[in-house]
């Protein structure tokens, strides 16, 4: 057997099983979901294998039959999810950027330890981290006790079950997602360039805007994208910290599958989330390509 053919055999041996596995159990389900989004929901849960575009019509505006009617609330919930995810990205960017800068200027040994400290909570169970915020934000919680103790308010402030709680919760659980790409970009900053900028008489702010910010932009974009995506479709955070009041698209999808039992409509909603994610990723790659 020639060397070339033997190599080919090795390659197939490595690729074969995992490729098959992912084709069947990753791409297969996504494909079936796509099909479901165009099927008719059965009257008692389940699904009729009849083509229908009304699942999208209910969301986007053209459905007006007896069972399937357009309701602007779905678009409103989707827009609300986009807004909450956007605000989450913004707050976590503002929180993480200075922190990443701080750590990138440490001694190497200390730096590794600091990164370890920042990423460690990522491994702490999500549900535990959210529970911690319930303890802090609830009416009898830590924050209200502190505020009332300081005499800032006489009655407990309603923090829990608000947009604020959801944004705070998502910011908190996605910190490593934002921090690591930012840190990666900031660590690579060329100190000589910054010094040159100062030498040429630029102020701190000018140096930040003209040198530091453009150089770290890939980290900002990368961190924002991978924070935005899980925030957009999230339904655990709003269901723990948002109560019934803060409904996001993820909660709506979950309802279609577990209480309303309208799988085709739930699939259509999921396609909407997927479409938003794909648009975002395409924009990111275009942006990156335009740069180089």
């Amino acid at each position, binding site marked *: 057997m020639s060397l070339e053919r*033997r190599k080919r055999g*090795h*390659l197939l041996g*490595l*690729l074969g*099983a*995992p*490729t098959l*596995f*992912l084709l069947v*159990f*990753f791409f*297969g*389900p*996504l494909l*079936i*979901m796509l099909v*479901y989004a165009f099927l008719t929901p059965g009257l008692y849960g389940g699904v009729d294998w009849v083509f229908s575009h009304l699942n999208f019509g209910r969301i986007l505006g053209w459905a007006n039959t007896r069972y399937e009617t357009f309701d602007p609330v779905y678009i409103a919930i989707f827009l609300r999810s986009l807004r909450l995810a956007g605000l989450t990205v913004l707050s976590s960017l503002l*929180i*993480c950027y*200075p*922190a990443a800068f*701080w*750590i990138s200027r440490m001694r190497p040994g200390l730096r590794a330890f600091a990164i370890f*400290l*920042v990423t*460690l*909570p990522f*491994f*702490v*169970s*999500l*549900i*535990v*981290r959210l*529970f*911690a915020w*319930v*303890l802090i934000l*609830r009416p*009898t*919680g*830590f924050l209200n006790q502190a505020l009332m103790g300081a005499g800032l308010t006489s009655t407990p402030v309603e923090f829990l079950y608000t947009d604020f709680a959801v944004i705070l919760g998502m910011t*908190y659980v996605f910190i490593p997602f934002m921090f690591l790409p930012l840190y990666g970009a900031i660590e690579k900053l060329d100190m000589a360039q910054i010094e040159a900028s100062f030498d040429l008489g630029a102020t701190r702010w000018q140096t930040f805007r003209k040198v530091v910010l453009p150089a770290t932009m890939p980290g900002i974009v990368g961190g924002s994208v991978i924070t935005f*995506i*899980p925030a957009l*479709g999230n*339904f*655990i955070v709003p269901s*723990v910290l948002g109560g019934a009041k803060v409904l996001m698209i*993820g909660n709506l*999808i979950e309802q279609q*599958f577990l209480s309303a039992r309208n*799988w085709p409509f739930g*699939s259509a909603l*999921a396609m909407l*989330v*997927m479409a938003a*994610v794909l648009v975002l*990723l395409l924009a990111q790659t275009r942006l990156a390509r335009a740069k180089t």
Partner: protein
Amino acid sequence: MSLRRLLSLYGLLFLAFVYAPILLVVIYSFNANTLNMMIWDGFTLDWYRQIFGMKTDLADNATYVDSTRQLYGAVRTSLIVALSTSVLSTVFGTALALAVARYRFRLAPMYRALMMLPMIMPDIVLGIALLIFFITIGMNLSMLTIIIGQSTFLVSYVFVTVSARLAQSDPGLEEASADLGASPAQTFRKITLPTIAPGILCGWLLAFIISMDDLVITYFIAGTGNTTLPIHIWGMLRRGIKPEINAIATLMLLFTLLIAAIGLYLRSRRQT
């Protein structure tokens, strides 16, 4: 105050923001106050005793025997799932990473791009897609469906971790080994495997921890009777905030820290 000092001060505040909530849970787990769990009323281990089904002074002790059994069941399910999932995805992820990094073939760039997909796919989308898939092909929801479902995205995590390690290692070493007459199997065992072993181990630990913690995807494909630990706790949370959740959370924290410490220890050993 200089900018540098200000930055350090901010950094400490940042770390406080990251750790204070978690520490709070640990502290409250020792709170003896049974009426209002948010007001400190002395130290107790009762909540831990309760989790382990031991006798406590708490009034409704009897009701906890049942919940303890459920908790143990959830822990057992989570461990079985996490072990199987992490092994499966480590084998698949490592194989793919090796193929893409060490062989030249036309589809390699496509693999590299597509392997990102499972990681960035919103988990709720993957969760419902898997649910529809399993129901449509007539597969009963069980521990097996959880293992398959979680592996679909954990393969990617291992792939990325091992690929990073492969990118750092020098392919010249492998070429040299082949030039010196080593068989591909020998080269793999003596050169490739030792260099990427830390990456494989990290990928495995990562997959294990993420699997233990996965809530969304598991939630959709677990079916009834296969409650994992995160789903169990989520259910408890939805029925009301109870003090023993603090104790369970603290134990989970301890477990996670233990695994992270093992990972770090192994990494430090590799460097020396």
